């Protein structure tokens, strides 16, 4: 029987200090309070003064409460019984199911030996053209979705999870709104995916410290499944809340902040989690998709900034769409060379043309003259946004590539795209005769997608700030 201590010296924030002997760094303890039991973790030792971070928060803790050290670090049970279950950040069931205590594994374990990694080479198909075509997601990639509050990032996460062919889905909720939690649970259930999912959910009303535990709990379980040959997809939403929880604790510990109040080790803390993404040569894999909301839509804010330096690219979610600019999958070249031979061509050309379209739009906004070419671009841009960029679109990669050709053919002649002749000979849609076409070409293209604006006039009309600059023309 382990010794019980009941001399709490200090309570500051969610950190308490007790006088105790023989306690290991990062060891777990149990505190008996009038509100019930809570776990706490040793975060600092100084002589006989032991500082602990209390998972359930320090509210209501009395200086006379009992602290019992458990002799091990934070652990999580690992077995197939986890499937379909929902826990909080301390691993306590929040679905009325039984608590699990078999096969406990420590969380936050050591990192994978780089010499044991392989170069990732399997694509994750999502049915979202902006991902599949333009920034392919790769098994074992760590990728955040940069987004401002209010964007449908959780819907996007859920959609990718439903579409991806993985063995296990692990959702980590960090400061999740209760509604969003229900949304995830219901979506998984509807798609019959709940039975291969495990949820560790910290909601906005739960104690801060539990928020910090969530990624480690998710990733420790993921690692166990991966070693057993499973492909695991870990979803973390929202990692900005994780960083804010770290900040809160650091402030309590009187650490000197480095940047806007965040602790100096924010980079290492985030990296320790994201780097768990891995593809084992002869076993399974962990892919990490995370949401990082950007306070004030500012990508230079310490959280998105540090994240960008760690992850293998990022998706920018803006106005309900994945932006082609700024979004980047750094691993895409590992997979998009062996999908279909026109994949890279379509990707490069369409983005280049879309960039030209953006420039033309700017020109239009400034009131400069618009050329024939510009008109073609405007039409192209509108079609692109509607038929590929919209998150409503859900088509397999091959279909998306075909659609890309169709859009280009509807707007340009083959030469105008700058695509090599051998490619256009093979892929350019035969039926289209784009050169003779009038800009108004709303008649064709079915596929149940609503017709968007097609002409320059309509486009300008939809563009709020274009008229003002008209007078500037020299």
């Amino acid at each position, binding site marked *: 029987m382990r010794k019980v201590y009941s001399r709490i010296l200090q309570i500051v924030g969610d950190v308490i200090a007790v006088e105790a002997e023989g306690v290991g760094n990062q060891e777990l303890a149990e505190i008996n309070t009038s509100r019930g039991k809570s776990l706490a973790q040793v975060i600092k030792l100084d002589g006989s003064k032991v500082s602990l971070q209390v998972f359930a928060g320090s509210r209501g803790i009395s200086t006379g409460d009992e602290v019992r050290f458990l002799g091990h670090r934070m652990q999580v049970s690992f077995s197939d019984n986890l499937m379909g279950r929902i826990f909080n950040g301390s691993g306590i069931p929040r679905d009325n199911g039984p608590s699990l205590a078999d096969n406990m594994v420590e969380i936050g374990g050591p990192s994978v030996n780089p*010499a044991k*990694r392989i170069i990732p080479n399997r694509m994750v198909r999502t049915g979202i053209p902006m991902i599949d075509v333009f920034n392919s997601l790769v098994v074992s990639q760590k990728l955040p979705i940069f987004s401002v509050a209010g964007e449908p990032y959780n819907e996007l996460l859920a959609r990718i999870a439903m579409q991806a062919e993985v063995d296990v889905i692990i959702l980590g909720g960090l400061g999740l709104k209760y509604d969003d939690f229900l949304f995830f649970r219901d979506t998984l259930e509807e798609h019959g995916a709940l039975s291969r999912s495990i949820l560790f959910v910290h909601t906005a009303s739960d104690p801060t410290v539990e928020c910090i535990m969530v990624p480690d709990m998710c990733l420790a379980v993921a690692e166990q499944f991966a070693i057993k040959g499973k492909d695991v997809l870990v979803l973390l939403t929202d990692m900005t809340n994780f960083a804010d929880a770290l900040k809160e604790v650091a402030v309590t510990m009187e650490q000197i902040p480095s940047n806007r109040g965040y602790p*100096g080790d924010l980079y290492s803390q985030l990296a320790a989690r994201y780097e768990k993404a891995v593809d084992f040569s002869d076993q399974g894999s962990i892919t990490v998709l995370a949401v990082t909301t950007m306070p004030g839509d500012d990508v230079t804010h310490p959280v998105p900034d540090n994240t960008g330096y760690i992850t293998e690219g990022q998706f920018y979610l803006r106005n309900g769409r994945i932006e082609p600019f700024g979004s980047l999958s750094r691993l895409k070249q590992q997979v998009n060379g062996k999908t279909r031979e026109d994949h890279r061509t379509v990707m490069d050309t369409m983005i280049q043309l879309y960039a030209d379209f953006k420039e033309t739009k700017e020109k239009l906004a400034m009131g400069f003259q618009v050329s024939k070419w510009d008109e073609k671009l405007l039409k192209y841009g509108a079609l692109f946004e509607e038929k590929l960029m919209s998150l409503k679109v859900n088509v397999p990669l091959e279909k998306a590539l075909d659609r890309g050709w169709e859009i280009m053919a509807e707007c340009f002649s083959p030469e105008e795209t700058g695509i090599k002749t051998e490619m256009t000979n093979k892929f350019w849609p035969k039926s289209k005769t784009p050169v003779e076409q009038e800009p108004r070409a709303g008649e064709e293209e079915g596929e149940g997608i609503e017709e968007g604006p097609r002409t320059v006039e309509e486009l300008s009309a939809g563009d709020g700030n274009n008229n003002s600059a008209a007078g500037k023309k020299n």
Partner: protein
Amino acid sequence: MSERTGKISAINGNMIVAEFENYVLQNEVAYAVAGNEKLKSEVIRIRGRKADLQVYENTESLKVGDKVEFSGELLSVELGPGLLTQIYDGLQNPLPQIAKECGYFLKRGVYLNALSYEQEWEFTPEAKKGDKVKAGDFLGSVPEGIFKHYITVPFSFREEYEVSSVAPKGNYKIKDTIAEIKDKKGNTEKVSMVQLWPVKLPIRAYAEKIKPADPLITKVRIIDTLVPVALGGTYCIPGPFGAGKTVLQQITSRHAEVDIVIIAACGERAGEVVETLLEFPELKDPRTGKSLMERTIIICNTSSMPVAARESSVYTAVTIAEYYRQMGLNVLLLPDSTSRWAQAMREMSGRLEEIPGEEAFPAYLESRIASFYERAGIVRLNNGKIGSVTIGGTVSPAGGNFEEPVTQATLKVVGAFLGLSRARSDARKYPAIDPLDSWSKYESVVEREQVEYVRYILRKSSEVGQMMKVVGEEGTAMSDFIEYLKGEFVDDVYLQQNAFDEVDGATPAERQKYVFGILYEILKSDFTFGTKDEARHFFHEIRQEFKNWNSDPWGSGKFGERQKSLKEKVEKNVKDKG
């Protein structure tokens, strides 16, 4: 040595405080004993009977009262044949062997020999009995891959010695004695093929340090031509995330005209190291015809590995670089990223509760960065041979803003600044080095006058481009418009380079000189165009031609043909100079 020990009295993250009885040495290595694990640490501060140590491992489960063993040695690396092709962690543990021993995951407290003590090397003596020698002088050599690896008098030997004996030609293990030397007092020292050197001290066993003058050819055009690097010089690559720092280093690590490349992956992604370590053995070094791995050493302390070892990894790397420099070789050291190293210092400084400077970096940040880059240089060895260490580190500024402590401290000490810009990388203009903001103190491979002119064109073009955003194309004078197009042209056909194209991906110095000369002629030409569309069309046409030319092998028939057709196209539009 009598065993000196202490007891842990406090633990805070990877910092522990040990109370000791005897004495301790500043910066000596110590081991915190946790059960049957011994965790490597370094003494970083001593106050009274208490020593503060940074632990190179996770301090989980350490207890107050646990034993600390002091080693009496500074943190050192093993130097000897067999370093090349290795993949080490920041403390010089060979990662592939660790994988063999421990499996998928790294295990704390496991330290393996950096070099094989069993492998035999074919030693050929160079010195003979009676020779007067001092630290760094060659005693013999062994072949290590494509290099002649010299075995020297250990750098730590301070005296002048006389060689008493040298082993005859034959096969030896690194711990075998290959020479005996004797100092003036008659004390004999045995010399083997391996020596230890403390990583935080520069190796100074050379005659003199000389001024870097010769260019280090990277085969990246924008670097060699506009912002060149010198053998023995220093440069930095700051840039926001995703701008292309790592890719640029990967490109240079493949193509740079140096003997040895040391990649120091410091606090960055493990995946990127994996790419290098799996691809290099397959890639051929055009200079030697052998695999690129034969000239490469990887020091890898990625972001999820212990932070204190990250701090030491750059020192491990630079010490190994200096070691090969001592053989008269040119070594290129590529740390990615020095910001992670600086952050490791910041984390430790915070735990020591030192008074913080800007953005909580320690006050000694600048001097540490300066003394690190000072370890680069070109030296004349005692025997007259020349060797060099060039350092090109990446910097990862917070928010991509160069006005931050690490970038600024680095800019003060380096010889070239290769700043990557978000605008250029977003526009997929690779390498995304900003041609206007970047600078270099070193000599370009092309003529200065030509470079100056091209700089002028680039600047002017950018100005016109800015102006055009306000007044439109129609509000821009034809002459300005042409300069604008000229600048875009230089950028498109010369500054940007397709890393994936076999020919375009690496441009030798000779070709750069030649092509830049032609480019210069084109830019100097006086063009006439009826309309702006005509002008644009013309430049687009020659751009296409020039880009194709970039992919034609140097000296091939195609190269000549394309040049001719390019010339014809250009001349058609040149104003007759009456």
